[in-house]
């Protein structure tokens, strides 16, 4: 066995680096592009692809019946995400392309552009966009119209990341289309009821576009329903249907949230989860569930310290002295203990879920400086009443050792109930003290961990567990201001 295949201690920075820079997704997209384009010189192609670095740009298709507001939504998304908008009209009207002039002639004669030509135009424009600017992306408005166009796009390798389809009942659409007006100068679409422009000069020059009468709209809707049902199955994985029967702003925000969620990537991911929450919020339970289901290492901080004390090492004796004096253990000892545990191979390989640490901003910064930054942080919010209810009603039977809860798991007989004892650490004053302490530090911690997910911990454990799971499995949402 030579040195290349022996089991290696992979330093922890490597997986973190891989995660932080999304190396798996990068390689995946690069390989996809290689397969699609199949250049003769792969290495310069790959270098250029990496230079361009536009894996995270928006690639959106917006489909919908006429008068559903596609163009409006497309233009708003375009402005918001700072990207390029392609509509059939804009593609045909492009000046510097022979394909466009051809398409224009055909459109003027037959009122219809052949599919092949349209898709070639799209491809031309998109390749231009890619070469020209980095980080721009594209939004296609109303293309593909038919399954043939969709298939052609797929064969050329132009795959969108998100597809939005706007649905609305036909009657609404027909009515809405009657009020459509176009500004001939800016080509913006206004509506007599829903979107009337402010400036009077714009109002004066608005024209009625052709083809908005009821009959024509009905005809177009018929054609649309016929073709769209065949286009949709191709994009089932990235599709989101939004009802266009609501106000424009709502539609826009739904579209925006969908566009900003990235899909689950296939990158290998070792979760390093930290759970924050006041005492009694269920951190230990959730951590145990997570460890059981995903095979993570459950690191409960209090328990870790007690284990070190039992281990009777030098550190253990130091900690013991602090325990006896009932003082909180100082940070540097705590760091040593934690480092010891987290740098063990099982933690590195399987990932860990930690709770009970860090307690305040300094500890959080020390954790980050050690190199063990968590990649998922959860805050479990539970109101004080629930906490008190959960904790102050805990009892222990001294004879059998069974643990009871006066509300959730009451003791079976009165005799047992009579002899139940309460842990002094479950008393109301103690609980209130600890909760105050937690909330004092939680503000800073929330600011420090900007990617933290806040959950409502007041529900039953399995619901909370599901929220946690979705938080861990789905990629972190990108926050675009």
């Amino acid at each position, binding site marked *: 066995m030579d*040195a*290349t295949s022996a089991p*290696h*201690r*992979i*330093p922890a920075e*490597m*997986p973190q680096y*891989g995660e932080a820079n999304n*190396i*798996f997704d990068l*390689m*995946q997209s690069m*390989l*996809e592009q290689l*397969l*699609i384009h199949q250049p003769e010189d792969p290495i310069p192609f790959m270098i250029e692809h990496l230079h361009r670095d536009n894996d995270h740009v928006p690639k959106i298709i917006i489909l919908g019946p006429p008068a559903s507001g596609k163009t409006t939504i497309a233009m708003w998304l375009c402005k918001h995400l700072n990207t390029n908008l392609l509509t059939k009209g804009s593609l045909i009207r492009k000046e510097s392309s022979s394909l466009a002039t051809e398409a224009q002639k055909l459109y003027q004669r037959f009122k219809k552009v052949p599919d092949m030509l349209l898709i070639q135009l799209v491809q031309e424009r998109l390749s231009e966009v890619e070469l020209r600017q980095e980080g721009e992306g594209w939004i296609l408005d109303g293309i593909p119209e038919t*399954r*043939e166009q*969709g*298939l052609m796009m*797929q*064969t050329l*390798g132009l*795959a969108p990341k998100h597809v939005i389809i706007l649905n609305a009942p036909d009657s609404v659409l027909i009515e809405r289309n009657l009020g459509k007006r176009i500004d001939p100068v800016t080509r913006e679409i206004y509506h007599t009821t829903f979107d009337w422009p402010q400036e009077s000069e714009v109002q004066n020059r608005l024209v009625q576009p052709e083809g908005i009468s009821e009959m024509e709209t009905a005809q177009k809707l018929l054609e649309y329903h*016929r073709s769209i*049902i*065949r286009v949709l*199955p*191709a994009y089932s*994985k990235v599709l989101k249907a939004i009802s266009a029967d609501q106000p424009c702003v709502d539609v826009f925000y739904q579209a925006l949230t969908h566009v900003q969620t990235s899909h689950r990537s*296939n*990158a*290998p991911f070792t979760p390093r989860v930290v759970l924050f929450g006041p005492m009694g919020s269920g951190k230990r339970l959730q951590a145990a569930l997570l460890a059981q289901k995903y095979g993570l290492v459950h690191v409960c901080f209090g328990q870790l310290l007690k284990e070190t004390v039992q281990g009777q090492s030098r550190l253990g004796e130091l900690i013991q002295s602090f325990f006896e004096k009932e003082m909180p253990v100082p940070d540097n000892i705590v760091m040593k203990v934690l480092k010891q545990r987290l740098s063990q191979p099982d933690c590195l390989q399987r990932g860990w879920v930690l709770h009970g640490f860090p307690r305040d901003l300094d500890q959080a910064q020390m954790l980050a400086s050690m190199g063990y930054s968590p990649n998922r942080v959860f805050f479990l919010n539970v109101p004080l009443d629930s906490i008190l209810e959960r904790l102050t009603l805990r009892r222990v039977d001294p004879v059998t050792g069974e643990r009871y809860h006066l509300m959730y798991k009451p003791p079976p007989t009165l005799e047992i109930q009579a002899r139940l004892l309460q842990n002094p650490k479950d008393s109301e004053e103690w609980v209130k003290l600890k909760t105050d302490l937690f909330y004092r530090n939680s503000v800073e911690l929330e600011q420090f961990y900007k990617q933290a997910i806040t959950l409502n911990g007041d529900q039953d454990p399995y619901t909370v567990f599901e929220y946690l799971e979705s938080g861990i499995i789905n990629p972190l949402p990108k926050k675009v201001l």
Partner: protein
Amino acid sequence: MATYTYTSRPRALPCQRRRYRDSLLQPEEEPVRYGNIMYDRRVIRGNTYALQTGLLPGQPDPVELQRKQQAKKKALAKKRAQEQLKPRTPEPVEGRKHVDVQTELYLEEIADRVIEVDMECQTDAFLDRPPTPLFIPARTNKDVATEILEGELFDFDLEVKPMLEVLVGKTIEQSLLEVMEEEELANLQASQCAYEEMRNVELAEVQRLEEQKRRHEEEKERRKRQQWEIVHKQNETSQKIAACAFAQRYLADLLPSVFSSLRDSGYFYDPIKRDIELGFLPWLMNEVEKTIDYSLVGRTVLDMLIREVVEKRLNSYERKEGSPPSKWEEELEIPERKRDSTINYLTQEPSTLQAQKRLSDTEYLRAPSIDRGPPTQERKPVEEEFQGPDDDAEMRRSLDTEDPTGASEL
């Protein structure tokens, strides 16, 4: 009686008469003392008829006289003080007397009487001034000679011996000293050389040792650096290997993931399905359309035939209506039914043809007024029946259009 004596040192007389030719270098003339008449004290200024209080310039001023006398006294006192301070020869010791002695080069006889001799001479006119003869005072001494015969004074050989001894001894001593000095010098030199040699040798030794030390240091440094490089390289190699292993593990799932994502996005498609969708189904649709068209055409032709037949029959019946009507009534019942059926066929016509034709046919049907009652009722269900198949045809068409989607989704 005091005789007048006057002594003066010899000096050149300020004689205006020039004896010799003007020397080539003319002495500078003394600047003519001239004064400004305005400031001349002898010139009386102001009014001359006023009292002349002041003295004439020729006569000394009494104030000034006094001042001058005081000044003189002061000067004398000063001179006396200075004379006292002047260093003089000390007073002679008791029993001795100082005697003045002449120390010049040539002694001079000093006598009370000054010998004066008048001499006259005459120079040649305009001669060059001869060079000043050296002043050699006249001899005032007498020559005296003496004679010493041999053997009178001293015996040379005896006298010379100690002197010679001393002389020679001194010389030899001197020379010995000199030689000794030289030897000493030579010794010093030699010892210095020896010392220099030793020093050089030691210096060389020191340098050698220093060299050695430096080489050792260098060697040590080099070895350390080598070692460090080796360790560093090992570290790097192990890191690279770890990175390689990590990358392999991390990207182990890459290819399957890429292929599955491309399949999801539709880039990889089943060619057979695609071929069916793009090639076979349109052809199928075309064929179905053709078949439907055929059946439609067939039906239209049939309708036309029936129409012609019914027209002919109607014409023949209308002609026969001119003949006795009684016979006809019996036959009417039967042919009524037949006519009903023909009229039914007639009603079939408009529904199979387009809507425009339908209107004209109903107009045409309204002509036979007898049959308006029942046939109208019968017309409707027949029409409905026929619209049924029409709708069926339409539905079938739309179903056909949807079928390929069903087929492609398989």
